């Protein structure tokens, strides 16, 4: 069977499925010695309390997402554990029947559900699935498998999930994840970004068909074409093994050339930098991927920490990054929460329209305590390497001025306390709101650089929620409006001698690379794995032709026309990089 979705991170792998949050757990029955009974009950008790803690966390997340139905169900499951009825009945039966907790729990819950099914109508069948779901969660704790803890995967596998959130992937055992396949998602959802950062294939938006994949089943994941082959036959496997060999050879060639500078055929140089989320990623960068860090997303430190990271913890992390990346520089982007990134422990109110709401700098200006401690940590780290700071979601001049005033105040405070820092560190702002892009010439006078976040800029420009599959076709980075806006921003920056980077998905998209170069962007920041591919392509491009492409694109009326021009351009120099 072949499932199709959107291929969001290229490459092909063959591997076994691990279904995150699978609904079936098999339990074997075994007899206990009299001496084992107390331990078994203690084990059950501990499984209950871990399941309880997990459910409370999920309930809080659901509450923040405003999913009331889910809150109700999770609340009920929490209360079932708190009842004591489950603990007492199962403990009694473990003692009397001398069987393992998993087996007793499963038979107890099965009997319960059967009674419920007999007593009630179809509606109550749904309640039995809530109770079965709870039992599965507890069973996973008992048999060691955890439903959301991905930190210990026994062997390399393909992760299958409805969707993956930043907190799911934060502690994930990355070394054993071969690929992601999710039911939800699009090119710019968290799963996609994460997959590209890790350099593993991913297919998202598979939809309901995902139910056909069960734990342990063999899969071929083709992240280039967006295909997942379930239980492939020998002939299919042979075909894909060949494909994997070709891909490996091609990658090896790219890696070998990766240290060459990114210079166009006619000698124009562009900086290539890496987008990074976690300090340990910096230390693990392959030599071919070691360049400056154009975007260090600090919010993942907060998610992983599980609590608001204090200044010392942040300082240690930032310093580690600054030291590890020397002699290159690192740009730390201050906390960008809200939108699709929530921190469950922060008191962020639920919003109907989170992407237009209290996010990023808006949140930081409201919560100055959090903002100041982050700025202190970044400034302190600036004494240990080449550090720049970047403010997300700046929309108005007033926001920029307030932000800069706080930064100056924090510097003065450090100065008074005699704490080492670089008072002249470069300051940049994200250009991701069209309002800021339109007054880029005014904003440029107060900062050292711009970083264009194309994911959000395109989303705001086109008024499209990129994670909604029904309208995601409107997410068009190649739309002439976007090209015109980017052109405007680059011109404004040039007028004041500021440099402009792109840190969105567009920077790593081969199709749009000629456009981006032709616009005169100075720095491209992307997932480390994309660097060799993009550098290689830069070397095949002629800048004069790229500039000509931009003037044609600015004159187009639709994204389709622009895309056609870009396809023709890239097709001439690197046809293998174009998706079919």
């Amino acid at each position, binding site marked *: 069977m072949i499932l199709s979705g959107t291929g969001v991170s290229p490459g092909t792998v063959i591997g076994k499925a691990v279904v995150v949050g699978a609904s079936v757990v098999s339990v074997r029955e075994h007899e206990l010695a009299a001496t084992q009974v107390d331990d078994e009950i203690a084990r059950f008790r501990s499984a209950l309390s871990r399941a309880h803690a997990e459910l409370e966390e999920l309930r809080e997340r659901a509450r923040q997402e405003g999913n009331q139905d889910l809150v109700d169900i999770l609340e009920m499951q929490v*209360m079932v554990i708190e009842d004591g009825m489950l603990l007492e009945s199962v403990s009694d039966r473990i003692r009397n029947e001398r069987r393992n907790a998993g087996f007793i729990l499963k038979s107890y819950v099965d009997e319960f559900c059967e*009674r419920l099914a007999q007593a009630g109508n179809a509606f109550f069948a749904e*309640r039995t699935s809530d109770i079965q779901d709870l039992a599965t969660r507890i069973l996973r704790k008992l048999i060691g498998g955890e439903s959301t803890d991905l930190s210990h995967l026994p062997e390399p596998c393909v992760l299958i999930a409805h969707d993956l959130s930043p907190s799911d992937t934060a502690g994930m055992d990355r070394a054993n994840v071969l690929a992601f396949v999710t039911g939800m998602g699009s090119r710019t959802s968290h799963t996609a970004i994460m997959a590209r950062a890790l350099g593993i294939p991913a297919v998202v938006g598979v939809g309901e068909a995902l139910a056909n994949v069960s734990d342990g089943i063999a899969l071929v994941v083709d992240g280039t074409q967006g295909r997942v082959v379930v239980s492939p036959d020998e002939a299919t496997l042979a075909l894909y093994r060949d494909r994997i060999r070709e891909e490996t050879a091609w990658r090896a060639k790219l890696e070998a050339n990766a240290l060459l500078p990114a210079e166009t055929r006619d000698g124009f140089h562009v900086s290539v930098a890496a987008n990074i989320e976690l300090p340990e990623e910096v230390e693990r960068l392959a030599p071919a991927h070691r360049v400056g860090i154009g975007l260090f997303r600090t919010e993942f430190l907060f998610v992983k920490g599980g609590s608001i990271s204090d200044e010392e913890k942040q300082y240690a992390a930032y310093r580690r990054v600054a030291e590890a990346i020397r002699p290159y520089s690192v740009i730390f982007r201050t906390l960008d929460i809200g939108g699709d990134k929530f921190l469950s422990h922060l008191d962020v109110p639920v919003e109907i329209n989170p992407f237009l709401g209290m996010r990023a700098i808006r949140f930081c200006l409201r919560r100055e305590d959090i903002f100041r401690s982050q700025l202190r940590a970044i400034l302190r780290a600036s004494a240990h390497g080449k550090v720049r700071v970047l403010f997300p979601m700046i929309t108005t001049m007033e926001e920029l001025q307030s932000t800069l005033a706080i930064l100056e105040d924090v510097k003065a405070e450090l100065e008074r306390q005699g704490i080492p820092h670089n008072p002249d560190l470069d300051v940049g702002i994200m250009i991701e709101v069209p309002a800021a892009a339109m007054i880029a010439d005014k904003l440029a006078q107060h900062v050292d650089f711009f970083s264009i976040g194309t994911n959000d800029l395109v989303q705001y420009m086109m008024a499209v929620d990129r994670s909604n599959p029904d309208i995601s076709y409107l997410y068009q980075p190649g739309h002439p409006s976007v090209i015109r806006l980017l052109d405007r921003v680059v011109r404004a920056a040039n007028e004041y001698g500021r440099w402009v980077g792109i840190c969105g998905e567009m920077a790593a998209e081969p199709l749009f690379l000629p456009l981006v170069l032709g616009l005169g962007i100075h720095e491209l920041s992307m997932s480390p794995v994309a660097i060799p591919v993009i550098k290689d392509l830069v070397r095949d491009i002629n800048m004069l032709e790229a500039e000509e492409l931009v003037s044609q694109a600015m004159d187009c009326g639709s994204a389709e026309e622009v895309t056609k021009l870009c396809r023709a351009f890239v097709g001439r120099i690197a046809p293998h990089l174009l998706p079919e």
Partner: protein
Amino acid sequence: MQNQLGLHARPVTLIVRLAKTFASHISIERAGTVSDAKSVMAILLLAAEMGTELTITAEGHDAEEAIAALEQLFANKFDEK
């Protein structure tokens, strides 16, 4: 039982939460099945849907308040339509 959806997740949790605020032993009965009002699983077993007749009994020093409070909760249809 007057709310349309019967005893689904939310009403059950509301009943249990309310019952637990009283010291009395409270039970809810439906046609011979008697359930502890402080246990979610027990109440689910009543499989009460709209129109089901339920009897609440309570024993203890705050029994009357407990019954009054629970009656009120049922009468308000658990704040649903």
